[in-house]
Every structure is written in structure tokens, then in C-alpha cells.
């Protein structure tokens, strides 16, 4: 008998781990797939800020625990249309969760067609998430992705119509589950049954677009540009530093610690950079357009974040990215009262 093959969407969280394990236990060959959108919390951000030790990538870690291969796919470019024009709209912030899930299942469907696999599994649970994991949205994802009955959700399969792998007897529906709702207890119990004690966050929190502060920064970027576009560097920089917009036409990105300063160093060729020459302080990038008056204002703000903040004058080196010219501005640090609350994005 042909051994059937499934691809599992592996997020690095518990649900996709359990769903995969349930199908592996039925003798199916499973490989994992993970999509990198640029907004994934999992992965790179831990590398920016200083930590005692680097954090693991949970999708890779999960795959290793399950003993399966993992294919990580860069979907940054294609994903832009999901973020910018979500057919089903946004959630509480600018999270296009339903479109996102449909997109990922569609990409998985394309992958199984290219690689001669039989079906797709996800860790979705009816009622687990308010936008994308509801009884009404499950068929929408299956239909819009083109996966139809090749999409199996092992953790809630018994609450859904029979899918191809169940109908064909590739998997036993009786050995699947009927989880529903927001409670995590069934997943915890199943994890215990599988003797899985180490896993990443139980649910959610995998995407920066669900984060209020991040969403505000992205909306500010779009507002100032006058259109909803972005490049990878834009969305990376929104994750880093303190963002202050003292004028509509420019903002400062201020490193908060050594790791962020080092990360921002990599952008010196793309942005004008400011840093105190005689005092300890952050590396700051200027994003936007600015004149000499703006530069003076920016330098005074930068001086505020240095160890010379209480001095009469602080020297700030301004490195212009266009020609590499460095000029030194001697400025009086701005007082904390003069740094307006509404400048903070």
C-alpha cells in the first residue's frame, strides 16, 4: 500500500505540534512547512536585542522534536498583498488573520501539488481565535485556498465535514479530535498524553501585526508615505528602537541598547545617522526628509538620550548617508518636558 504523505503547517506553537503528532501516529509520512512573512515574531527579532543566550526558532525545534523535515519558505513579497489589501479586513489591529490563513493554506496546496503530497494538516481549532478560527471561517479557508477536502484539521476534525484523507481511509477519523473553543485544557491534556512537556507559547502572539504598538508604527509609516507599501527593511526597523516623530516629514529611530545599536549600524548607508561623539549614547537613524533646522532639533533630541543630557552642550556627529560626510553639531540637550508625548509613535 502506498504510504500517504501530508504537509503540516508548523508555526512553532503547541497546536500544530499536536496535530502533526496525531497524523504521524497514524502512519502518515509528514513534512513540515513554515512561511516567513517578515512579520513573524518567531525567529529574527530575538537576534536584535541583547540576550544572555540566543533563543531557538520554535518551528525548527518543533520539527526536530517530531522527527520531521521542515521547509521554510520566504513569502515576503507575495504576502504584501495580504497585508495591504485583505479581502476579509483586519482584526483588532492590522492583522489580516483570515486572509493570512487562506494564503498559507493556498501556498501549502501549491507545495503539495509540486511535491506530490496528498493532503495538508493544520493545528486549527474551531473557536480558538476570534477572527480566523471560527466554524464559519473553516470552509472559507478550505475553499479560497483551493485545498478543499485535502485540508485536514486533526484537532477539531470530528466537528467538521469528512475530508478526503478520512473518506479514503488514509487516516482514521475516530482517532482524531473534537476540540473547540478558547480553552487550552484539551491541548494541555493531549500534550501530556504524548509526553510533550516543552513547547512554545500555547497560542497566539506569532505575528507582529497583532501587536498594537507595532501596528501603530506601520500605520504611521503608511500615513507619512501617503500609500500602503513597505519593504523588508521598513518592517524590520519598526521592530527596533524607540520611534519619535517630531515633524511630519521625518522621524528618529533610537537604539535602546547595544544589540539594537549594532543592528542599526547596518543601516548607515541608507539613513543619515546621529551619535554623540564624546558621551555614551544611542545610535539614531533619521528616516524621512529634513533641513538644517530639523537636524538641530534631531541632534538636541539625540543629546537627551546620552549621558550628557544634563550638560550645557553635547557634540553630536551627523553622518550623511548620501555622501558619507560627517558634521559635528554642538547642541543643548532637549529637556524631557520639551520631548512631546505625541512624538512617540
Amino acid at each position, binding site marked *: 500500500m502506498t504510504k500517504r504523505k501530508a504537509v503540516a503547517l508548523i508555526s512553532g506553537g503547541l497546536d500544530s505540534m499536536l496535530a502533526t503528532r496525531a497524523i504521524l501516529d497514524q502512519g502518515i509520512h509528514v513534512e513540515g512547512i513554515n512561511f516567513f512573512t517578515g512579520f513573524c515574531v518567531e*525567529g529574527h527579532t530575538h537576534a536584535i536585542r541583547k540576550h544572555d543566550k540566543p533563543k531557538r526558532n520554535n518551528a525548527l525545534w518543533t520539527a526536530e522534536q517530531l522527527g520531521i523535515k521542515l521547509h521554510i519558505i520566504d513569502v515576503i513579497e507575495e504576502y504584501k498583498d495580504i497585508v495591504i489589501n485583505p479581502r476579509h479586513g483586519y482584526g483588532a489591529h492590522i492583522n489580516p488573520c483570515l486572509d493570512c490563513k487562506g494564503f498559507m493554506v493556498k501556498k501549502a496546496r501549491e507545495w503539495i501539488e509540486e511535491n506530490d503530497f496528498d493532503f495538508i494538516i493544520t493545528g486549527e481549532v474551531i473557536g480558538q481565535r476570534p477572527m480566523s478560527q471560527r466554524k464559519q471561517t473553516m470552509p472559507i479557508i478550505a475553499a479560497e485556498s483551493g485545498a478543499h477536502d485535502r485540508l485536514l484539521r486533526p484537532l477539531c476534525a470530528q466537528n467538521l465535514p469528512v475530508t478526503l484523507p478520512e473518506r479514503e481511509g488514509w487516516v482514521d477519523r475516530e482517532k482524531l479530535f473534537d476540540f473547540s473553543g478558547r480553552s487550552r485544557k484539551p491541548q494541555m491534556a493531549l500534550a501530556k498524553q504524548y509526553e510533550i512537556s516543552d513547547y512554545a507559547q500555547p497560542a497566539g502572539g506569532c505575528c507582529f501585526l497583532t501587536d498594537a504598538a507595532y501596528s501603530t508604527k506601520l500605520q504611521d509609516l503608511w500615513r507619512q508615505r501617503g500609500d500602503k507599501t513597505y519593504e523588508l527593511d521598513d518592517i524590520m526597523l519598526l521592530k527596533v528602537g524607540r520611534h519619535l516623530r517630531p515633524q511630519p516629514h521625518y522621524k528618529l529611530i533610537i537604539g535602546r541598547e547595544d544589540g539594537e545599536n549594532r543592528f542599526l549600524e547596518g543601516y548607515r548607508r541608507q539613513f543619515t545617522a546621529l551619535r554623540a561623539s564624546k558621551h555614551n549614547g544611542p545610535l539614531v537613524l533619521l528616516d524621512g526628509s529634513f533641513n538644517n533646522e530639523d537636524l538641530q532639533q534631531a541632534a538636541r533630541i539625540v543629546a537627551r538620550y546620552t549621558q550628557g543630557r544634563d550638560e550645557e552642550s553635547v557634540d553630536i556627529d551627523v553622518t550623511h548617508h548620501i555622501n558619507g560626510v560627517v558634521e559635528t553639531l554642538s547642541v543643548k540637550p532637549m529637556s524631557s518636558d520639551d520631548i512631546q508625548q505625541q512624538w512617540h509613535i
Partner: protein
Amino acid sequence: MNIYQLDARRLLCPMPVIRTQNFIKKLEAGDQLEVTCTDPGALIDVPTWCRINGHKVIGTITEEDEIRITIEVDGS
């Protein structure tokens, strides 16, 4: 056996893993790939990716802010 080099400096994980994965797809069994990264997360992620996909890490060197990971491509 050929030796190849991949520059993944300034890329943050998982991009060094993705670039490594995509590069190795084009290589033959026994070929070696030397990946240079600056993200310390690559020290964990690239070897993990290699283990789960059957490739062998045959050397890791860390010099200042750069990490060089040498991988031997699996034949199976």
C-alpha cells in the same frame, strides 16, 4: 566534491536558514557549503535545520561578529 560559499551576513534568522536551504537544493551529495552569518541565532538555527534534513555540520568558527558554518550535503 565542490566547496561553495554563501554570504548571509546582516540577515536575521530565519533568512540565513532559508538561504542555506535554497542553496543546498542546487548542490550534489558530498558538496560543502560555507555559510557566513552575523546573526548569533544562526548558530542554533542552521545546525538544527541541518540535523532535521540530514545534512552534516562539519565546522563552526566564530570570529568577532562573524560566524562561519561549514555544511556537508547529505546524499540520501
